[in-house]
């Protein structure tokens, strides 16, 4: 019956509603294809973009690719960007706006060996901590956390960060930052059960991956923004609810066809995406405020500005009917 009806509808409606040419949308990913972006793959695989009449192209990120620049330059329509990138670009005059926070908790965590006795930032005193020289998420959160707790960074011995954690494994490095969705999985695969120091436990709340676009697109094609966001969030909901399927879909895209690794990454990121509090993608002004202040403190912003311009709840409210919960 339903089939018949839809058939009739198809027959009856096709001439009066000619299918529009799909809107071509390019999405700049934050890194190479991996489970981190599973929700976007799900939206594509399940036809949510097609349903919104969107033809999507994923632009891979990676070493040497300036994700934020690709969006501001118009090479990509949307970007999966870190909030600090958005805030910094905005302070430089670029009109980047965040639409939704996919990762509403930061995957940044500081690890110390289980037998090291290091369980909280105050224990860092006199210890070796690995950090990069550039000011990115690890460093941002580390300094913010130390400042928040009133701990002197000078008492900590900073050593270069090694993504292979060689120094950490042979105890030359006592504390290393890592992503709970990446490095931590590798450590645990090694059989380690490190003590974890989460910056969010010490008042440092950062979003990780947010979906952003230019103000121009928002003002010119708000409908396209809504459609794209709706399809993406629906894909993310499916990825969370059916994460095993999401892993399978991810393996179609990713270079690293390690199902076990992608699965572990997926499991680790589920609580970061779906916190059990609000709808997927939902953002809180106080968190943006907090992030802005940390960046300002660390003098990473070219100039101060109204942080509420860097994000908008307009589309989330439209999609979720105004409710975060």
């Amino acid at each position, binding site marked *: 019956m339903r089939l018949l009806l839809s058939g009739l509808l198809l027959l009856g409606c096709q001439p009066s509603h000619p299918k529009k040419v799909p809107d071509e949308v390019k999405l700049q990913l934050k890194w190479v294809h991996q489970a981190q972006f599973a929700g976007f793959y799900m939206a594509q695989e399940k036809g949510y973009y097609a349903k919104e009449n969107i033809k999507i192209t994923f632009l891979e990120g990676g070493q040497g690719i300036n994700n934020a620049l690709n969006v501001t330059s118009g090479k990509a329509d949307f970007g999966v960007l870190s909030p600090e990138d958005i805030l910094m670009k905005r302070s430089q005059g670029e009109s980047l706006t965040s639409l939704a926070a996919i990762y509403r*908790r930061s995957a940044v965590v500081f690890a110390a060996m289980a037998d090291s006795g290091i*369980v*909280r*930032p*105050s224990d860092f005193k006199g210890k070796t901590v690995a950090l990069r020289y550039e000011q990115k998420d690890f460093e941002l959160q580390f300094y913010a956390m130390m400042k*928040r*707790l009133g701990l002197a960074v000078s008492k900590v011995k900073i050593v270069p960060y090694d993504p292979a954690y060689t120094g950490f494994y042979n105890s030359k490095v006592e504390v290393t930052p890592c992503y*709970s969705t990446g490095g931590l999985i590798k450590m645990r695969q090694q059989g380690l059960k490190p*003590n*974890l120091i*989460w910056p*969010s*436990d*010490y*008042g440092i*709340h950062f979003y990780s991956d947010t979906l952003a676009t230019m103000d121009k697109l928002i003002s010119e094609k708000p409908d396209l923004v809504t459609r794209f966001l709706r399809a993406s969030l629906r894909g993310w909901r499916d990825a*969370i*609810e*059916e994460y095993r399927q999401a892993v399978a879909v991810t393996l179609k895209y990713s270079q690293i066809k390690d199902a076990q690794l992608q699965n572990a990454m997926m499991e680790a990121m*589920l*609580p*970061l995406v*779906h*916190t*059990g*509090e609000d*709808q997927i993608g939902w953002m809180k002004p*106080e968190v943006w405020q907090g992030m802005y202040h940390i960046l300002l403190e660390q003098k990473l912003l070219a100039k101060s500005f109204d942080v509420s311009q860097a994000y908008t709840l307009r589309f989330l409210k439209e999609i979720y009917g105004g409710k975060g*919960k």
Partner: protein
Amino acid sequence: MKLAPKLTILFLLLSIVPIAIVGYLAYDNGRRTIVQETIDHLVSINIFKNNELIRWIENNKSDIEELAQRFLVRQYASVLAKHEAPDPAYHRAKGNIIEEHLKPRLKYGGFFELFLMCPRHGLISASTDEKQEGKYRDTYPYFIEGKSRTHIQGIYYSPSLEKPAMTISTPIKDKQGNLMGVVGGRLDLGELSKIIGLQTGTSPTEDTYLVNTFNFFVTEPRFAQDYALKKAVRTEGVDAGLSGKDGVGFYKNYRGEPVIGAYKWLPEFKICIITEVDQAEAFASVVHLAWVIAGIASAISIAVVFLGLFFARTITRPVRQLAEGAEEIGGGNLEHRVGTASKDKIGGLSRAFDRMSENLKAIMVSRDELEQRVRDRTAQLEAANKELEAFSYSVSHDLRAPLRAIDGFSRVIMEDYTGKLDAEGKRYLNIIRSNTQKMAQLIDDLLLFSRLGRQEIRISDIDMVKMAKTVSKELKPAAHERKTGFNINELPPFHGDQAMIRQVLINLPSNAVKFTRPKENATIEVGGCTDENENIYYVNDNGVEFDMQYVNKLFGVFQRLHSSEEFEGTGVGLAIVQRIIHRHGGKVWAEGKVGEGATFYFVLPRGMRDEG
């Protein structure tokens, strides 16, 4: 179709229809009752579990509130709130509150961690889990809300604990009502899962679980592990429950199994409680009921078939016997009797039938007796006839030998003793000889006559005209001296024994020749015509007539109307004619008028083919 199966099927239909209706009504009623009972049971489980959940939370709430109101706890909390970490008083207070109040409380169960948060920034100043100390909870609802009243933060995933968590918090205030801290307790969700999942009966599929507004399992369902806050569930029941409804549904659950599910929205916790039972289990007793009803119906049907067959036989047996009896008697067996002991209408009919058979038999018997008597008489007569003929034949035959001897010796005497005999003697001898010859003729005629009685008739086509002409030529010499006219008219041809018919055509004209002798102008006319089924022939003469008074004696053996002196002859000729005509199935008669001569008629049936 035969009567018995017809009646049986009728019986079956008459019984099955009400059985089917009653059976269906019973089944439907039973099914409704069972389903309603199942639904009531599921709904009551939800209410019961909801109460258990409230009781569990209330107990824990009052426990933590009691903790927050302890005098010493308030004292220590105020120390921790007013002093900084390096202060020895801070350390003492922290040690005391953990060792004397928080840790002892853990032993009573319910919580797996109890901690104290400072009013400033929500810093965890003391905790039963030492690793949690120093963390800030200023953004957490359980701290923000817990500052003013007892708060329960629903089930959420705690990244720092890396597991689902539920936290109750309550403020600690000094006598003046100033906030000294917030005490928090993390509830053991394993305990909640146990309470929710606890089986209320022996049902193998009953399954109760909680689902949050994001469609995620909050407690572990019965048939899965590690689902809490990791696995979403979207079923008809869950969606209905999450939309704020209380009710029951038939749908497929998270295992894809068809279930009856009761859902209830718990607004105070913003979660939905679901209790399901597999339809297979719920309907097992319905299926059982259906089987029982079907079994009873089948048993009754079988019984009805047997009863139907029995009654059908009782009714149809006499009818069938009657029909068979009629058949039997119609076939000729008059001895057959239906014989019945039953006193009903069919019994009466059977008895009437038997009486009819009896009467019929009596009639048939008397008829048969009569026929038999006729047959016997006929046989007797035939035997007597045959005997008589055999007798006359043998007599005739045997008489010829002595006759020849008499004639022979008479001639010997005439020839050898002619000299010794005088004329008178010779005359006597001649008389003897002529009489013996007459007797021989008589015997020959008798033999012929008797042979005609036994001789088989050989049928062939006879041209009567031709035969009459041939015979008339043979008779001419006898009629030679006189002027005798033979008129042979048309004679219809006939099928019969040629020799016998020829005898008729000799005897009748020669008879006519004989009796016309006194006439000067004798005329003999032979003619015939055809009738419907027979040929009529006549031989007419104008000779000596006979008195019609003696017409019956004409055709008798040795019957003579004239003396042998007047007309020669043995008196057998017409008897032979009559016998031949009779053997051909015909009739012969004569008519005569004084002065006008005589006419002999004979009629032969055309249809005759064979004597047998």
